[in-house]
């Protein structure tokens, strides 16, 4: 056949197979859609974060100190080489005149703010007004709403009145993390009267520097300032990247599952297509087309579908992402500039072609098994999918290429590899399960019941097909159950109520002379309020066993936070009731000259610390060394007072300190803190329920996205599984036709179908459930650090849904011969 003729034939065949192609198209399209979205997100977010990190930082570099402003001489020295804006951040309560109040992060800015990026405020001129008009404030939208404020109204910051002159829409320098809480801007000139030097203010002085020209460097005198922290744009992007990487990793694992599942789907679809078209292929061969010709025809059709699929998927995900971009990613301050990139498209194309060679080619090679001789003998030899040794080798190589390229393209290669390993292991498990099954079936003899007889016979005859189906189903159901259990666990964690004995409020920044006033005020609000007041200091860890802490612990370690930045430390005579001792002894109260320490045992484990080790702290400028005396089990999730470090009181009480307090009111809704805040304007509070609500809100958004995507994969899984099931159905059309002619009733055939599928699928459902329960247990307890929980309703719903899909699919694919028409039999032989 010459090319134009062949092409004509090709187009004709494509057209005739339209309806089958659309079915396959859908599953592949969806999986490639997820995959290309992941690729696009991965490429763009990282680039975008890199590009934006200067804006997110607010300059070419940032110097920051806790507690105190930068030395003036040094600042002047810096000014020779840099443009500088000073931003002082602290937490405080703002109070409206209607007594509503709110914890807010205040940014004190100077005239130069912002040096880079744009602060968007409403009305547009209000940032200028802020800089010129004293005692004015810009607040954010949520505060405005919650406090019921209008422009021009007065709010109190501590006891100083401020006029609300505008609303903040967005600020450029969010420092790499999206802002959880509420924020407000005031100008330096209005700042004098405010007290920000207590521990509850979490004050930070930040200096954002922009180089006057490119080769300006920091002066060498900087080394004198020990508490100075220097941040570059890369540091900001590092933080944000880490957070986003986790999410993208999750997405890409999902997309890998989707690709594999849809590849299996493609394989099944092609197989059922071939078995339905055996006769036609035999005729084509009898007319002189060679196996090669026919394979080339279907190769090119499948490839064409895949190429078209990839193109559609890539373009749709571009559209999808620019849509998501506007609604979802805005809070990350990231504006993706998605556009068609040939490089990204080629990646998608590469993977889709890999799918072809992994899943389609081996099936299409079955065409060789179809013989013209069958036309003379006139019966269907049913196709059996027996891979030759060569094609098994081919497939294994391709699988390795697939895994390898997927892993190196991924943000977390090792974890992705582990995921694939799991995938391969369970595939093998199901493969052997299916073989074991056949062995068992072969052992069953001497059955009287006709259903048993036919059913077992069928399972044996279609054994290679059944093992494909068992593998498809097993892998598919395991992933489905796993996703189901995972999301039910996350959901439960998110919706778990605040622990019974958790306090309602944390009050911070209470000075020694204010304790009595504070307790009295709390009692005035609620006589029965339970309050616990503990002392608190802030310290920085200087050395651990005379080594720099960063030499001991890696940034990736879970307990890195312990040595990073300032630690709040308290002391106690008795071991705290919620922190049981796990190792060592509690201190005696007579040794007042040595500093003794009690540590969180998890942290101690991660840092490999032992009883008797020493830690040197920097406390308000002085170095103080202490000896570790014991370890406590600290469960931060009980939301009561928990300190990673406790001092012995005899020593610590000599250090200048302030207090924090937790309060649990009888009825938290009726509480009005107005008076208390008026009397103690400098203290700060955290309302637990607000805080949890915000966190939950954010996590819920992520969860919804995750569930949506997992749901999509589950859907693909169902389509693929139901297709696999209908392959068997189609193969047995002839047999069931004969059964009907021999006098089997409709109901009998249905019974047979259901019986067969039950013995085939029940063990698969049970073992996939067991595997996913075990795996989810390890996965959740090691990666999520939450208590694994199992709710039987989730797998039950999935199973019921699955069985429903199964029955519908079976009935649909078998409707041909359940309501068969004898006429068609007479007509076509």
């Amino acid at each position, binding site marked *: 056949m010459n090319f134009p003729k062949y092409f004509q034939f090709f187009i004709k065949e494509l057209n005739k197979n339209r309806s089958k192609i659309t079915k396959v198209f859908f599953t592949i399209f969806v999986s490639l859609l997820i995959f290309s979205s992941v690729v696009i997100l991965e490429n763009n977010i990282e680039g975008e974060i890199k590009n934006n990190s200067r804006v997110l930082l607010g300059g070419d570099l940032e110097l920051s100190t806790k507690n105190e402003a930068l030395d003036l001489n040094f600042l002047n020295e810096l000014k020779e080489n840099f443009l500088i804006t000073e931003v002082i951040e602290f937490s405080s309560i703002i109070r409206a005149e209607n007594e509503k109040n709110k914890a807010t992060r205040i940014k004190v800015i100077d005239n130069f703010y912002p040096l880079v990026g744009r602060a968007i405020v409403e009305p547009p001129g209000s940032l200028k007004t802020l800089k010129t008009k004293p005692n004015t404030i810009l607040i954010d939208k949520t505060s405005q709403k919650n406090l019921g404020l209008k422009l021009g109204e007065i709010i109190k910051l501590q006891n100083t009145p401020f006029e609300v002159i505008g609303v903040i829409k967005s600020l450029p320098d969010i420092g790499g993390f999206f802002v959880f809480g509420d924020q407000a801007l005031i100008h330096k000139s209005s700042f004098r009267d405010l007290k920000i030097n207590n521990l509850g203010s979490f004050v930070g002085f930040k200096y954002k520097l922009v180089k006057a020209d490119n080769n300006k460097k920091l002066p060498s005198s900087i080394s004198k300032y020990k508490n100075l922290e220097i941040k570059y744009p890369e540091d900001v992007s590092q933080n944000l990247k880490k957070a986003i990487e986790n999410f993208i990793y999750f997405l890409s694992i999902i997309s890998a599952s989707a690709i594999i599942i849809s590849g299996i789907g493609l394989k099944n679809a092609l197989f059922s297509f071939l078995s339905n078209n055996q006769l036609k292929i035999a005729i084509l061969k009898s*007319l002189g087309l060679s196996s090669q010709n026919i394979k080339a025809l279907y190769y090119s059709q499948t490839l064409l579908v895949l190429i078209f699929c990839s193109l559609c998927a890539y373009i749709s995900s571009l559209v999808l992402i620019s849509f998501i971009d506007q609604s979802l990613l805005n809070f990350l301050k990231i504006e993706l500039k998605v556009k068609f990139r040939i490089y990204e498209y080629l990646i998608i194309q590469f993977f889709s072609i890999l799918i072809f060679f992994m899943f389609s080619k081996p099936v299409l090679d079955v065409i060789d098994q179809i013989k013209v001789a069958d036309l003379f003998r*006139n019966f269907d030899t049913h196709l059996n999918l027996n891979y030759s040794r060569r094609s098994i080798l081919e497939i294994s190589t391709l699988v390795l290429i697939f895994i390898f390229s997927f892993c190196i393209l991924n943000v977390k290669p090792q974890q992705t590899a582990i995921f694939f390993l799991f995938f391969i292991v369970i595939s093998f498990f199901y493969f052997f399960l299916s073989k074991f099954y056949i062995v068992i079936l072969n052992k069953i003899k001497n059955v009287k019941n006709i259903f048993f007889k036919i059913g077992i016979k069928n399972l044996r005859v279609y054994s290679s097909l059944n093992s494909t189906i068992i593998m498809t189903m097993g892998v598919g159901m395991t992933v489905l159950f796993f996703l189901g259990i995972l999301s039910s666990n996350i959901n439960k964690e998110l919706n778990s109520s605040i622990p019974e004995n958790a306090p309602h409020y944390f009050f911070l920044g209470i000075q020694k002379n204010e304790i009595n006033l504070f307790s009295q005020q709390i009692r005035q609000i609620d006589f029965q309020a339970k309050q616990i007041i503990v002392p608190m200091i802030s310290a920085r860890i200087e050395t651990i066993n005379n080594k720099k802490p960063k030499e001991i612990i890696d940034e990736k370690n879970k307990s890195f936070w312990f040595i990073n930045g300032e630690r709040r430390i308290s002391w106690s005579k008795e071991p705290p009731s919620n922190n049981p001792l796990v190792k060592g002894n509690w201190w005696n109260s007579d040794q007042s000259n040595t500093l003794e320490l009690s540590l969180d045992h998890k942290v101690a484990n991660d840092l490999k610390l032992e009883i008797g080790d020493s830690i040197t702290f920097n406390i308000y400028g002085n170095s103080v060394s202490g000896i570790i005396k014991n370890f406590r089990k600290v469960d931060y999730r009980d939301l009561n007072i928990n300190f990673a470090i406790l001092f012995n009181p005899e020593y610590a009480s000599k250090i200048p300190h302030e207090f924090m307090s937790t309060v649990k009111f009888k009825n938290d809704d009726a509480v009005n803190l107005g008076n208390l805040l008026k009397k103690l304007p400098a203290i700060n509070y955290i309302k637990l329920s607000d805080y949890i609500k915000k966190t939950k809100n954010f996590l819920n958004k992520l969860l919804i996205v995750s569930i949506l995507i997992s749901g999509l994969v589950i859907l693909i899984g169902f389509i693929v599984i139901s297709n696999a099931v209908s392959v068997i159905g189609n193969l047995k059309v002839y047999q069931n036709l004969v059964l009907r002619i021999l006098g089997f009733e409709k109901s009998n055939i249905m019974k047979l179908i259901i019986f067969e599928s039950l013995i085939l699928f029940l063990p698969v459902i049970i073992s996939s459930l067991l595997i996913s329960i075990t795996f989810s247990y390890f996965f959740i307890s090691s990666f999520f650090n939450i208590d694994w929980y199992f709710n039987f309703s989730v797998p039950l719903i999935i199973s019921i849904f699955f069985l429903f899909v199964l029955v519908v699919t079976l009935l649909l694919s078998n409707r041909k011969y359940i309501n068969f028409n004898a006429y068609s039999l007479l007509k*076509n032989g």
Partner: protein
Amino acid sequence: MNKRLEMKNLYKLDNIHLNYHVNGNDIKVLKNINFVINKNERVAIIGESGSGKTSLLMLMSGLEKPTTGSIFFNNENLSKISEEKVTQIRRKKIGLIFQQFYLLPNYTSLENVMFPMQINNIKNEKKKANLILSDIGLAHRKNNLPSELSGGEQQRVAIARAISFNPEVILADEPTGNLDEKNTELVSDLLINYSFKKKISLILVTHNMGLVKKCDRVIKLFDGSIKV
């Protein structure tokens, strides 16, 4: 002299044996078959069911290889040459007709008749196919699918398909086996007439005595051997 004679040979079967190997036993399906078929000859193969007629046709179409012996088609040894070459020969020179018709299911009558011409790169295939279809009286059914045709009509389309590309020989396995009396007559006449008109050799397996009589020669099979 000898060579000239061979030129006239279409088929030469030389000491053919065919065994099937089933469950460790050899079933002797064809035993010591020798015959020659000349060009432009019409030969009927008859014999009881199970005597090996279909197996013989399969050997002659190159779909099956003999256990021992040689089959020469136009002096080429079908049992020696590659699968690919056999496929090419079948595509260009052999038309097959089956008892069950076996038209391409999603193709119309016209498309079915055109198909062999297309794969053989024969020009004007549409015009030629239309001509043949009106010749066999099915011009009005040319756009129907096989499932919309009666058995007789389907077999006529199959014959049209088999002769459309001017093969050297048509191998037909019980072409009238599924047809009623009237259609048997119609199909038999078509086959014989085309064979004469286009000088196509015809080798057919049949139980229909009317058709046997129209042939030049009869080969009788009995239990896998030729019965004289």
